[in-house]
């Protein structure tokens, strides 16, 4: 029986404390069984998520933060919130864990070929954008896309994820990276201000461009109108929704909005699709 509720047995290979306050950690998971690894990478598309599973603590949907070319592991960046996320934060390299996935649709990278990308992220929701950008920056994919502009905001510099890699991105000549923090800090070289304000300031052109936005609800709420003001049409604005989930495969009803199930039909939607759904986010 192929059971869609049965997690793959995995092990934590590496834990990275991402932020100075240690509320965000990345976990790199490896597969106990070769066939699970093959099945995962056959399906994986950036923007998808997995249900991580710790028996006794249940499951939590977490976005995939690694690109397939990075190796036979899957990275997740988890913010400590409640029962499950606290339990995983207490785990170490070598500990066993379960994982179901990849789940959901992911970003329609095929449809974006030939277009410029504007990537806007904040908080832990940046993780799937990170995976997507890494995927696109790989030499075998880079030429398929136009210019890449990234805008990444965090409350302060200590909360910035994936610091070494973001540093490298600043030095690349095939992308432009704008980083922002909310309040000024000594030695900060980049923008100061909230993401919507910085976006207005850098005012990227909507011409042949797809905007992808993933962040905390408040950031998303105030950034969407700016994109609209910059003349990005709703069908070229993509965002990823977070809803409470259980099954992750469209069966349990939990993540329902209108006639969509966020776990199966999403989590990635265009603004146009969201505008057609009941206002219940």
């Amino acid at each position, binding site marked *: 029986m192929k059971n*869609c509720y049965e997690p793959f047995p995995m092990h934590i290979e590496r834990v990275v404390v991402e932020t100075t306050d240690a509320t965000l950690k990345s976990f790199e998971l490896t597969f106990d069984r070769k066939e699970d690894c093959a099945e995962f990478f056959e399906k994986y598309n950036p923007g998808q998520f997995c249900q991580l599973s710790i028996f006794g*603590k249940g499951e939590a949907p977490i976005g995939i933060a690694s690109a397939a070319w990075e190796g036979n592991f899957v990275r997740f960046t988890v913010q400590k919130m409640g029962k499950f996320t606290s339990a995983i934060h207490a785990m170490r390299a070598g500990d066993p864990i379960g994982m179901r996935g990849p789940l959901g649709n992911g970003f329609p990278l095929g449809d974006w070929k030939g277009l410029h990308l504007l990537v806007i992220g904040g908080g832990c929701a940046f993780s799937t954008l990170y995976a997507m950008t890494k995927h696109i920056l790989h030499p075998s994919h880079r030429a398929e896309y136009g210019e890449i502009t990234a805008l990444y905001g965090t409350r302060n510099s200590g909360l910035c994820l994936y610091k070494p890699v973001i540093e490298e991105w600043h030095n690349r000549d095939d992308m432009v990276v704008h980083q922002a923090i909310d309040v000024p800090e000594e030695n900060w070289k980049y923008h100061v201000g909230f993401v919507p304000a910085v976006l207005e300031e850098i005012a990227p052109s909507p011409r042949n461009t797809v905007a992808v936005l993933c962040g905390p609800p408040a950031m998303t709420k105030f950034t969407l109108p700016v994109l609209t003001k910059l003349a990005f049409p709703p069908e070229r604005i993509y965002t990823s929704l977070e809803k409470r989930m259980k099954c992750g495969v469209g069966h349990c009803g939990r993540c329902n909005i209108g006639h969509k199930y966020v776990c199966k039909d999403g989590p990635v939607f265009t603004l146009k699709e969201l505008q057609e759904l009941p206002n219940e*986010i």
Partner: protein
Amino acid sequence: MPTKWISRKDLKKLPDQWLKQYDVYAPIQNGHELAFQLVKESAQIVWDVPSNPRYPAKSLFLPQSEVLMSYDGILHSVEKVERPKVLFGLHPCDARAIRLLDHALVDEQNPDEYWKSKRQSTIIVSTACISPDESCFCTAVGGSPFNTADSDALIVEVEDEFCVYVLTEKGGVLFSKLPDAEDAQREKVEKLTKKVEAGMPKAFPKKKLHDNLLASFETDFWKEVSQSCLGCGVCTFLCPSCFCFDIADETVRKERVRNWDSCMFRTYSLEASGHNPRPTKMERTRQRVMHKFVYWVDLVGEIGCTGCGRCVKYCPVNIDIRAIAQDALHREFEGMKK
């Protein structure tokens, strides 16, 4: 597919023959009420079921609590070989609900094997509902007390004899030895169908109801209709087409189980951040009704309520989904948005 006939005396003996090969589930007396349960002998079966048993037959395919996996360091699927079953004596509305749930639980990519295996091993033999209860309204939502669409066989009682409509090959196996019905008998059934249907509510205008409800989304209509709701969840637990479930770990038993859940509960959509997209009973009642009359229609083209009447009958404060639909049909919502 053939139409057969059988006398009352012979029909009552049939389940005993099925019992040699199948587990038979049928309405039997369970304390004060009827329930679809495993039958030991035909004599236990209640043949004249006046209204739908309170506890819905979906529980035979999606039990109220079901073990999905056991844990011994990793989680293992609990694989059960399903015995062949006959589910007998449910009304066509309940058979329709089971077919609707196939849409929810069986998709190509990730079929729910627990549901699927129970479905595949079961033959559904419905009985026509010749004296619908006053809470019944299947005809308003696209069904009929004589509906043949969703069963493997349908049995109709006419003048102390029974007409058996064999509807699938699966159903035919149970009735292969019976003689074919005569034309006169079929005519009697047709007459009876017309008579019973005539006494039942008219079909809701599906499109208008759908559009009106959508227009009502952000209005105070929902405050009004949900005012007395207690949030007890009875309406969804007893609903044959509600399927929401929770997944939970039973640490002492070392099992991961799924349990029925309800969108009428406050914590159902509450997130870790404290944000709740459906914070009050108004949004929750709206979700229950919209799911049945709008979202199901968008997804599969038919209303997701089968008109079985359970939520109407058992709501402790008499919230009536028929009345909500009627009300929504006769109001002007355009321009009412808050």
